[in-house]
């Protein structure tokens, strides 16, 4: 009974959102309709929310007559994981996705006044998108499907690799980021329909977009960290298709925020800004399509269902056709007045848009090329890290150099560009000095490493000088830009050092003996079988001594879960600021030795820290009073 209530509430909400969509597009905007749309949307959201809360309650109370809950939860699970099991597979995570779109819409709805010209149509667009997704949920992937008449006594359990706090928060954060861009998208469409070039839709969406970008950044960083320690991948980025489809919206969103900062001030780059707002949202949907259609082989295996893929593809197609036709129809109103001055901030940002555009194009190519190639030549191929490295390293470095010089540029002013200004010279000298020291210490002539570090240092020194100036000479500084770009510099540095220094090696160790690797003495003290509530594990105990004589204890595990028979590897990591000692245990050899994989991952924490720093920059902007 209660399952049906939850089900009917979501169907009712679908009807209500459809109604809002129709009202907002058919009627002319009046005070009355604006109020009606706003009120009705809030009610639709409440219906959905109640439906979702009931669903959570069903999961907590182990109602296994719901097929989805029976397949993905278990009475033994702690309440926390019972809730997170909802988004551990397709149907439930789609439900969460929809709730989040509605949530963004709702918060937007209650924060923006009804007399805002763009509001009714924006809410209308959001409602129609919700209808599209709700139909997808109810028709192709219904989470409310029941097992009747007799429910199973216990559920099939959540996949053990998903029983992890990081995974419980990683998908929701990422989804909040993805679907948050529904707001700029809806406002851009609403602006295009309205057709009055004097309406500043850009002002309306800036903070919302930054907030969505913050969630996206944190979501990607969390995912990278989770794959590192829980999946035992031992790295931070693998160019896996699923990572790539998250990276594309992030790149588009970053370009969008840059472009937005220009369009807010003048009529320049409006074409870019609108196109980017459409791209971010459609790339988010494209990500959902790739992950959920099972069209691409990836380690993230989601349900393989061609129907779902087809539905999503058609949905994206319709959205793109409508928004791009609108864009072409209204092209005349968004054309800029006058030219961009050379060496102004605007000129640098338009160049930046081109760089980001190229990066998105390359990732898109890498993701879709195998599909096209197989279709045309009947030959399976895959595009791996070498391609992405070959493209990303030069483009990111050149873009960063432009960034370095752009610090001195001014808004809409033709700067007499002078390469001999003191901050530039000081940063260049400091960076060269540091590079010479690096060559001396590391005895390396790895060109890619040196140039990446050099560019990273240029950015860091340049922005440090800026920050220093703002403290001592009260020079104006945009804190968002400074922190975010410092994070970029830090990211470049840490990725370079990580790829130069990190090493790994598989060792074979006998119990109670010592193997040496690099500066470490690895002693296998003990290995034993431990029985736990839902799994048995082989647990090893290592004493690891470094060159200074410090000893750390690490105990990696190999687990076998009883309900699914699944084997998982639990890594053991010793974290220090400069490097991680990362150990996983493998199989026992015939001669009694154990295979042990040891990785030394340098500066890997700094990579995630840079991600967090970017997110912090976003939060700073959201709370800053000053107009940016």
């Amino acid at each position, binding site marked *: 009974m209660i399952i049906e209530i939850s089900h009917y509430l979501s169907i009712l909400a679908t009807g209500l959102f459809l109604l809002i969509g129709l009202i907002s597009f058919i009627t002319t905007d009046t005070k009355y309709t604006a109020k009606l749309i706003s009120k009705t949307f809030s009610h639709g959201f409440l219906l959905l929310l109640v439906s979702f809360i009931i669903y959570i309650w069903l999961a907590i109370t182990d109602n296994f007559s719901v097929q989805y809950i029976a397949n993905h939860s278990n009475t033994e699970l702690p309440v926390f994981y019972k809730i997170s099991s909802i988004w551990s597979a397709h149907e439930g995570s789609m439900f969460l996705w929809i709730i989040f779109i509605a949530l963004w819409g709702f918060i937007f709805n209650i924060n923006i006044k009804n007399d805002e010209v763009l509001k009714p149509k924006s809410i209308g667009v959001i409602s129609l998108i919700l209808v599209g997704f709700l139909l997808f949920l109810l028709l192709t992937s219904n989470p409310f499907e029941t097992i009747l008449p007799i429910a199973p006594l216990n559920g099939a359990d959540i*996949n053990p690799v998903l029983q992890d706090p990081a995974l419980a928060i990683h998908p929701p954060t990422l989804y909040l980021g993805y679907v948050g861009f529904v707001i700029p998208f809806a406002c851009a469409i609403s602006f295009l329909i309205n057709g009055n070039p004097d309406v500043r839709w850009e002002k309306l969406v800036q903070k919302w977009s930054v907030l969505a970008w913050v969630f996206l950044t944190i979501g990607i960083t969390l995912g990278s960290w989770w794959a590192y320690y829980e999946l035992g991948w031992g790295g931070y980025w693998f160019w896996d298709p699923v990572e790539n489809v998250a990276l594309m919206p992030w790149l588009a969103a970053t370009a969008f925020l840059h472009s937005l900062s220009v369009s807010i001030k003048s009529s320049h780059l409006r074409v870019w800004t609108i196109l980017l707002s459409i791209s971010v949202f459609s790339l988010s949907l494209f990500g959902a399509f790739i992950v959920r259609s099972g069209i691409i082989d990836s380690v993230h295996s989601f349900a393989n269902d061609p129907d779902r893929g087809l539905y999503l593809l058609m949905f994206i197609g319709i959205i793109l056709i409508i928004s791009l036709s609108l864009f072409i129809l209204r092209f005349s109103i968004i054309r800029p007045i006058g030219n961009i001055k050379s060496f102004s901030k605007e000129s640098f940002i338009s160049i930046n848009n081109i760089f980001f555009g*190229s990066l998105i194009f390359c990732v898109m190519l890498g993701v879709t090329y195998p599909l096209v190639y197989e279709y045309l030549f009947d*030959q399976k191929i*895959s595009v*791996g890290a070498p391609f992405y490295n070959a*493209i990303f390293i030069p483009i990111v470095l050149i873009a960063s150099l432009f960034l370095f010089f752009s610090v001195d540029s001014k808004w809409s002013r033709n700067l007499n560009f002078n390469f001999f200004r003191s901050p530039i010279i000081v940063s260049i000298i400091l960076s060269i000095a540091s590079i010479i020291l690096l060559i001396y210490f590391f005895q390396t002539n790895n060109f890619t490493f040196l140039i990446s570090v050099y560019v990273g240092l240029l950015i860091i020194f340049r922005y440090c000088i800026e920050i220093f100036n703002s403290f001592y000479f009260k020079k104006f500084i945009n804190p968002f830009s400074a922190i975010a770009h410092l994070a970029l510099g830090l990211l470049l540095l840490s990725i370079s050092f990580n790829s130069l220094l990190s090493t790994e090696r598989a*060792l074979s160790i006998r119990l109670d003996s010592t193997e040496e690797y690099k500066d470490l003495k690895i002693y296998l003290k003990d290995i034993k079988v431990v029985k736990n509530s839902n799994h048995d594990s082989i647990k090893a105990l290592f004493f690891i001594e470094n060159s200074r004589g410090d000893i750390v204890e690490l105990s990696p595990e190999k687990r076998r879960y009883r309900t699914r028979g699944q*084997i*998982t590897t639990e890594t053991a990591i010793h974290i220090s600021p400069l490097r991680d000692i990362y150990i996983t*245990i493998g199989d026992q050899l015939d001669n009694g030795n154990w295979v042990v994989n040891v990785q030394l991952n340098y500066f890997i924490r700094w990579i995630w820290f840079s991600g967090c720093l970017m997110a912090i920059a976003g939060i700073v902007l959201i709370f800053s009073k000053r107009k940016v």
Partner: protein
Amino acid sequence: MHPHRRKRLFNIILVLLFSTSGIGLILYSLNTNLDYFFTPTELTNINIPEDKRIKIGGMVLENSVVREQSKVIFTVTDYKNYIEVVYEGIVPDLFKEGSGVVALGFMQNETFYAQEVLAKHDENYMPPNLSINNDN
């Protein structure tokens, strides 16, 4: 030609030149960095240069896994042809005899030296191009 138009033409040519050369470079690097995927049967029919990174996929042959120090040696098969694979390191959790595997590496003298061995975290995963009946 009108000077204004000439300038415009010049700009268009410049943009076209840059974008085509950019796309050309990208496609070139894409083509040189592709990993082709083969099944053991496909591999017997063609010659792969030793320095060309490829992917192979198939089932791990029963009773073929041998561990030597930190090396794992096993045979990948589509139950028609066989390839010996050598891998240094720890094989993934789902790697086991009689189940699917994908390896990335280089072919040298009939032996495949793997840099990476993948088994999916989906238990029911089958490597592509292998719709084989498991019972023979």
